[in-house]
């Protein structure tokens, strides 16, 4: 989803190929990403670029309208830092909620909310992580929020109540056409909650990581 949002923000036309990660990965995917065998993969004139953060970065590097990263080197380093933080922490903390029960669930929920609070601090009093404009970190972060409803259901909480600033930012991002269209496509094709329920039926195997990358 991050990649689709970035392409939409840049006005880049593309062809989308949906992979069935439960049914069997295509030869094209396995050839394009032989090391990780995961989506997303961007093929630009036949050349593969893999890993969603890396692809978004590439799109911003290559297509100049509407820069997603700031022009100042220090601000760019801060954007990269927070994108890296989001990648390392948010998904794992969310999965911690899904995997936990009882007292562990409370700990997992607090960890997750603690991470969102740190992200609220990173945003400061601005509308977006990119400041006044929707930027690279917003692209990276907003895609992950497609999973939040599932965490809320499993954890019995609401993000907008515990992290109101983050909740406002989520709603603001959903008003952007690039984000709205991507979320709508996701909703039509697959429900994250039903994915997790399907994974529970598969005894919560590594398939969860595949879905995460599918949706991100």
């Amino acid at each position: 989803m991050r990649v689709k949002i970035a392409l939409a923000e840049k006005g880049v036309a593309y062809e989308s190929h949906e992979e069935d990660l439960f049914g069997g990965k295509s030869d094209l995917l396995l050839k394009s990403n032989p090391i990780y065998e995961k989506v997303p993969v961007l093929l630009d004139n036949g050349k593969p670029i893999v890993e969603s953060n890396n692809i978004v970065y590439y799109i911003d590097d290559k297509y100049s309208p509407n820069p997603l990263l700031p022009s100042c080197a220090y601000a760019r380093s801060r954007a990269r830092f927070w994108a890296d933080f989001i990648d390392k922490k948010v998904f794992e903390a969310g999965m911690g909620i899904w995997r936990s029960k009882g007292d562990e669930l409370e700990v997992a929920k607090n960890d997750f909310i603690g991470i969102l609070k740190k992200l609220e601090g990173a945003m400061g009093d601005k509308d977006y992580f990119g400041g006044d404009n929707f930027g690279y970190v917003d692209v990276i972060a907003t895609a992950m929020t497609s999973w939040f409803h599932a965490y809320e259901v499993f954890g019995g909480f609401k993000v907008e109540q515990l992290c109101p600033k983050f909740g406002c930012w989520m709603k603001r991002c959903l008003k952007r056409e690039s984000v709205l269209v991507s979320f709508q496509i996701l909703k039509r094709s697959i429900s994250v909650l039903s994915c997790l329920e399907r994974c529970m039926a598969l005894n919560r195997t590594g398939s969860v990581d595949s879905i995460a990358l599918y949706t991100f």
Partner: protein
Amino acid sequence: MAEVKLLGVWYSPANHRVEWALKIKGVEYEFIEQDLQNKSPLLLESNPVHRKIPVLIHNGKPICESLIIVEYIDETFEGPSILPKDPYDRALARFWSKYLDDKVPAVVNTFFLKEEQEKAKEEVCEMLKVLDNELKDKKFLVGDNFGLADITANFVGHWLGVFQEATGVELVTSEKFPNFCAWRDEYINCSQVKEYPLPRRDELLAFVQARARAAASASASTQK
């Protein structure tokens, strides 16, 4: 007061990557060795999120995470380029750097941690197969010039060999990974390493052996 400061530890590959980048660009800096068992207020204030080294402080502003710091150095200071100019090659450089950086915990666990050691070993062997395949007849990871990915490869090019010697755990042989070994032998003798040396092997070996002994005796005393 130095305009550029680096908070780090001499024995860390992540630290070395940053020093390498600074030296390539000819940037003068003050290196402030940290005690990771007793973290300084400056480190905790400069990296409150992760509380880790390395941290570059440029004109009072901190930059954290070694690969992010190297890109910042490349963008900020004049001198030879560390990242390629072409967007696709830059994407490849970032891919390989992240791939290598992500393997650091597995490499450490393979040699020094008892729990999950077998799983870590499998991951490292898989990484070595990938690198052996990628590095066939290649001097540099991306394109024809030394860059970000090669800097990040300091860990597999130098530290991994030291860990093998320190622990006697042998994963890398020229029979199993001939291309990787050929690349590694050239890497530690290449002009970029001669000009900006890696930490001395004998010093690093002594340090790692001492740490391994300390960890073993701490583990033995907690089991009594």
